[in-house]
């Protein structure tokens, strides 16, 4: 497990360092680049957490879309020289963030979590590395999924299936949401200043 540990700490440093950079470096452009570093680190975490599919999505959407969008925005608003200055709320912000962190850490440490039983680890692993459909029966049996119905169950279960079965409603809702957001953005970036009434 050593290797993974090393990776984890590496990623942690990347993520935290990058995040600090995002909120601290005065140059907005560099901040945006650092944000990409954080996104990559998070994608790394996802792989560590055996969520390869999510990692891919993360890279595609965040790095590929969001970060680029932001960088464009930074360019367009031409406020780079003004930079990424802090406002008068630094101290309270820091204090509150610290306090919240304390609270969250307490939660993380003191809560009695209900962990996944060891015997289920392997199956969960299989299901989560959502390549299950391509696995052969032998590989499944190696992973301790012996009985055929179990194998069938594991084969059927995958993110995509969930999205169109159990979570079909939020799935549809989110599509509506995307449409709405699209329209909204479209209206807001329209050329004409529109009417001035408030």
């Amino acid at each position, binding site marked *: 497990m050593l290797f993974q540990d090393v990776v984890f700490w590496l990623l942690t440093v990347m993520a935290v360092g990058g995040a600090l950079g995002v909120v601290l470096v005065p140059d907005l452009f560099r901040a945006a680049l650092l944000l990409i570093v954080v996104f990559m680190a998070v994608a790394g975490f996802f792989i560590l957490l055996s969520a390869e599919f999510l990692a891919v999505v993360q890279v595609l959407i965040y790095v590929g879309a969001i970060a680029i969008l932001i960088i464009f925005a930074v360019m367009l608003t031409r406020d780079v020289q003004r930079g990424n200055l802090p406002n008068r709320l630094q101290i309270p*912000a820091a204090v509150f963030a610290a306090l919240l962190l304390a609270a969250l850490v307490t939660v993380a440490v003191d809560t009695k979590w209900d962990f996944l039983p060891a015997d289920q680890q392997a199956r969960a692993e299989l299901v989560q590395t959502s390549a299950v459909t391509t696995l052969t029966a032998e590989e499944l049996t190696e992973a301790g999924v012996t009985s055929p119905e179990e194998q069938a169950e594991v084969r059927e279960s995958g993110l995509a299936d969930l999205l169109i079965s159990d979570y079909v409603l939020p799935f549809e809702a989110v599509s509506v949401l995307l449409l709405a957001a699209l329209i909204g953005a479209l209206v807001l970036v329209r050329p004409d200043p529109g009417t001035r009434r408030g």
Partner: protein
Amino acid sequence: MVSEAVIWSIFLLPLASFAFAALVVRPFFNRYSLISGAVTIAALGTALAFSIWTLRSVILGHDLDFEPIEWLVVGGATIEMGLLVDPLTAVMLVVVTGVSLLVQVYSLGYMKGDPSFSRYYAYMSLFTAAMLGLVLASNIIQLYVFWELVGVSSYLLIGFWHERPAAAAAAKKAFIITRIGDVGFLIAILYLFTQADTFAAAGLNAFHIPDIWAAAQPGFAAGALLGGAALTWMALGIFAGAAGKSGQFPLHSWLPDAMEGPTPVSALIHAATMVAAGVFLVARFFPLFQNSADAMTVVALVGAFTAIFAASMGLVMNDIKRVMAYSTISQLGYMMAALGLGLYAAAIFHLVTHAAFKALLFLGAGNVNHATGTFDMRYMGGLRRHMPITYILMLVAGLSLVGIIPLAGFWSKDEILLGAWNGNGLVDTWVSRVTFSALIAGVIVTAFYTIRMIILTFHGEFRGGIDKELEDKAQTAPAGASGHGGVHLAESPWVMVLPMVVLGVAAVAVGYLANPQWTEEIGIPRHWITGFLGDGLQAAMGAVGHAETLDFSRWMAGISTVAALSGIGLAALVYLRRRDQRADPLERVKPVHTLLTQKYYLDTLYEDVIVRKGFFGVIAGTLDWIDRNLVDGIVDLIGWFFRNIGIAIGKFQTGQVQAYATGIAFGVLAIILALLLA
């Protein structure tokens, strides 16, 4: 035997004439205002006739108790309106209607041409009606009702010429001061109601006057329901009311000011109605007083003190009517003292005689004013040549007031003095002794100021009347003078003289109703009136048989006569032989004179110190300040406070979005913390 309706109509006739004058004549036929006068006189004439009829049937001993009418029944309180006809009532009826009638006739001349003629008669009728109702009342609350009505109609009459500030002020003063006394009366009534249950248990009505009498008698079947300290306090409460109306010592100061009203009004007030009401009230509840020696003592001493105290102020007054006013107060003092000493009959008798000659005196003053236009005696003098009849009449009345045998005043005053000397065990002897000496002294003073008044008015030579007065104190409006400006020295018209003549006869004759030794010829028994009234009292107290009456004592007659003559002589000495017609010889004794002219500074004390400075200035001022600044200020302060709290909170709304986000973060942490600590 007189019927109930007749007795009621004695009260209702004047009331009707009031309604007629006020609601018909005044608004619609004010041009023919004479009608109202005629109507009033007609009503009063009838009332007088009925009263005499009533008196007669009382004398004949007819049984005259009638069923009262229920006026108001609320819970335990049953308030009735009824007739109580006993000798006292009967006598008072005659006196009131008689004097009132004469005054009304007199007013025909006196008020001639006054723009508010019918208003005057309306008030007068109301006044008389109220007094009659008071006399007839069989229920203490009914009595209180008319008591207050008397007060308000006197208020209206004193302030009759309301455009005069002095008149308006005097009216207000009269009403308020009498009101102060009434509080005592009212509280006495309230106390009675607390006993309503016990009364009811004994089959009595706590407000029915005869029942109250009965309840106060030790000999009462169910034992005395009223007694001890309670009875005393009740009696004193009633007396407070009486003192207010009759101008007894602490509450006397309104009476002299009441002269601001038209003179006939003064005559009525002073002779028959207003001030008599006080004495009547005490007499009415005499059975109560009699059972409380303390109360009697108070009444006697207050009366005695008032008698001498008021008379002393009468010495120095220059306004003829004020002299008479103080003499009234002091005579009322005599009556009160008499009542306090248990001389019930004598007091009433004196009330009767006094009614006669005091009315006469005032009407005379009216004549004088008619002639000279003023009331200030310093501008009169020598009038006997111009108006002899008035002079004679006033002389008779004056001597009667002084108590010169054989005039009416002598007999009544003599009864009182004699009784005071003897005492009758109701109060301690020292009380009767003190009272007696005060009264004797009073006789001398009375004689002095009466003669001074007569001399200043009618003797010497004329000193110019109103015109002179005006140029002396160069002011525009004739202060305290009636509308009859201008001097025309002549006898008044017959409408005014005639009633005076009648009264003059009365002032001489009334005494013979009483105890002269040689009256068998006339056919009146000795001590007739005192006996008559005394029996009435006996009956009221549930006792039977005749009240014993005092024997005529030559010694006492002699003493009082001597006292009177000495007073007369002194006055004659001082005033007939003075060099300067204008100056008042009494002014030489400066301090005393000022003290007296300043009325012992009592008015100053009352009005300036107590009312204006003390009450209005300090108490009312403070409360008013508190109300404006504290009570109200606090309210405004609260409003201001909240508004500013709001503004303060609003300041956090800096408009910067991250401040709001910080707010959220703070909120979350605060909640977590709060719940952790809770």
